[in-house]
């Protein structure tokens, strides 16, 4: 069972258990109160399942457009972004759009080849849950996230950009 680390109130915390059971593209749904499913399956069954009260997370591949989810986002509990390679930067734009354009309030989870050295950037674009591929601990994640004392840009987090800090 891979470790899920969530950012909660500025702290990195290991989730005691992950409520989301992963559903494949087709076949029977796993039991449980929450399901993580691929976009294609969500587009077929998702709205009906949401109506039944199931909590749903959608797994987006890097080439999949977040725009396709826009209508249903307010009812989704979680969006998982797959990074098949850590060098594939598309998830960063997807996360930024989720938070900045669609004001998505649920969990944005990074899965795949998620490594510590990219964590601070992922957090800035709006990722608040990590399934690390390199065994990064909550302490190591917190250290990485606090490494830069200032930032130059506004992003999905609340950090003031340098120009705003200079005003104060």
């Amino acid at each position, binding site marked *: 069972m891979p470790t899920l680390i969530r950012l909660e109130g500025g702290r990195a915390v290991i989730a005691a258990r992950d409520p989301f059971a992963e559903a494949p593209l087709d076949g029977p749904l796993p039991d449980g109160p929450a399901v993580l499913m691929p976009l294609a399956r969500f587009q077929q069954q998702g709205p009906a399942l949401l109506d039944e009260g199931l909590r749903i997370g959608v797994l987006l591949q890097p080439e999949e457009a977040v725009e396709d989810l826009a209508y249903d986002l307010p009812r989704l509990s979680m969006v998982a972004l797959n990074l098949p390679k*850590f*060098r594939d930067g598309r998830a960063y734009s997807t996360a930024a759009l989720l938070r*900045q354009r669609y004001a998505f309030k649920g969990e944005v989870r990074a899965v795949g080849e998620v490594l510590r050295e990219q964590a601070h*950037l992922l957090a800035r674009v709006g990722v608040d849950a990590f399934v690390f591929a390199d065994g990064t601990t909550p302490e190591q994640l917190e250290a990485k996230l606090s490494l830069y004392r200032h930032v130059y840009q506004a*992003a999905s987090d609340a950090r003031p950009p340098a120009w705003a800090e200079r005003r104060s």
Partner: protein
Amino acid sequence: MYRYDQIDRDIVADRCAEFRAQVARRLSGELSEDQFKPLRLMNGLYLQLHAYMLRIAIPYGSLNSAKLHRLAHVARTWDRGYGHFTTRTNLQLHWIRLKDAPDILDSLAEVGLHAIQTSGNTIRNITSDPYAGAVADEVDDPRVWTEALRQWSTVHPEFSYLPRKFKIAVTASARDRTAVRVYDIGLKLRRNRDGALGFGVLVGGGLGRTPILGQTIREHLPAQHLLSYVAAILRVYNRHGRRDNIHKARIKVLVQSLGAEEFGRQVEAEWRAMDHAAVDLPDDELARIRGAFGAPAFEARPARSAAFEAAKAADPAFARFARRNVVAHKQAGYALVNIALKTPGEVPGDCSADQMDAIAELAARFSFDEVRLTYAQNLVLPHVALDDVPAVHARLAEIGLATPNLDLASDIIACPGLDYCALANARAIPIAQQIAARFADPELAEDVGELKIKISGCINACGHHHVGHIGILGVDKRGEEFYQLTLGGEADGDAAGDRSRLGDLLGPALPYARVAEAVEAVVGAYRRARAPGERFVDTYARVGLQPFKEAVYADAHPA
């Protein structure tokens, strides 16, 4: 020039600390080479043929004496006492040890220098006009906007893992000194008929395997929206640029496949949906940055300098230097002095630590503490009183850098090539040296006139060969170095219009030993064919390839 405040210093210091930890994790084996490589690249560190190479950013090509002295110190302490200035206004040190890199970056950070995003699939060091703030025809100081871009692009959370590298240039004069059309984004600052400041936005330029000139997607972007519009371009590219094939991953391929019009439409849609206020700098921050680029405290001087005129009359070498390398300044009684790092026999763009120190002293004493770097791998003292030019020339002559060859045949752009570079197929530097030797006679060089020879040791085109009047590309033929010549390229423009074009292939590749004589033959054909006042590229445009082909291949024998 812009001086770092505590925030800027902290960001660079934190980056140094981050990279120090990453190097330690790599040396201990905690990070694999595959995981570490993008991290070291985005800190300017390549593994080349003989050692690591560190590429240090010179943002918009602007240095002061403290920075140049520090570069000299670093070259002396951790390298072999010299560095190589590049076509993208960086300095490369070729003999770096990985384990020293964190200490080097700490030392650079003390004077506000760094190697952040000088490589990797990131927004690279941004280039601008080396004559900024010194020439009369600029509509605004481009450095204000370049510095805004520098800050915005540094450690950008969304755009640090792009499909491929991303280069931006900003120019503010009708006369283009940045090669703006060969950039991923080229920004041309101009005023519209109402006098409002805005940017002409070009996208999709680039050299390399698929050379393409940038195309305009926006004629006049209101200047205050620069950052949000660039962010919109980057977001479209980050999402839709190809990631399956490294050779098709640059933005130019996306622009080509969509068409500039459709690409521009997508950018406009993205930009309109964006929260501009979150991205664009507010007026007070722009004013703060602008304040850093105020004019130096020029003295009131007569337009004509008796000392300058007397030196020209007395010394033909100085007169030639004044004619070739000294450029009119917007301030009466001042000039820009170009220092060509192109002494025949030396390595184009190379500068020894001693030379760096000497130039830094000249800048401090004679040029309001400023030095600029040009994309032709030369330096400029941008604000020298005409009265002081003879003294500057005398000192440059002492350090071997007074060659009066700016824009002439021996002012050659050359990448490091196979003498250093792990990507190269062939050497570039010795070819440049052989050609420069044939045009070392200043009389001959001046008679030939403006001739921009550009040499790349591989298809990646760091030497900009596609836009050379004579371009030379090294290729590998069965393990041996061969060279393709192209003619008629140009990356230039002025008030009369943009003249950028890609060169045409002359004919079959030539072996190493025949390149310099072939260039000489091409120049000979030009001198026979030219009409009065025509530059090489003008004659080429009029007569075409044929006379040059005949000159190079007529007596060709099977190699």
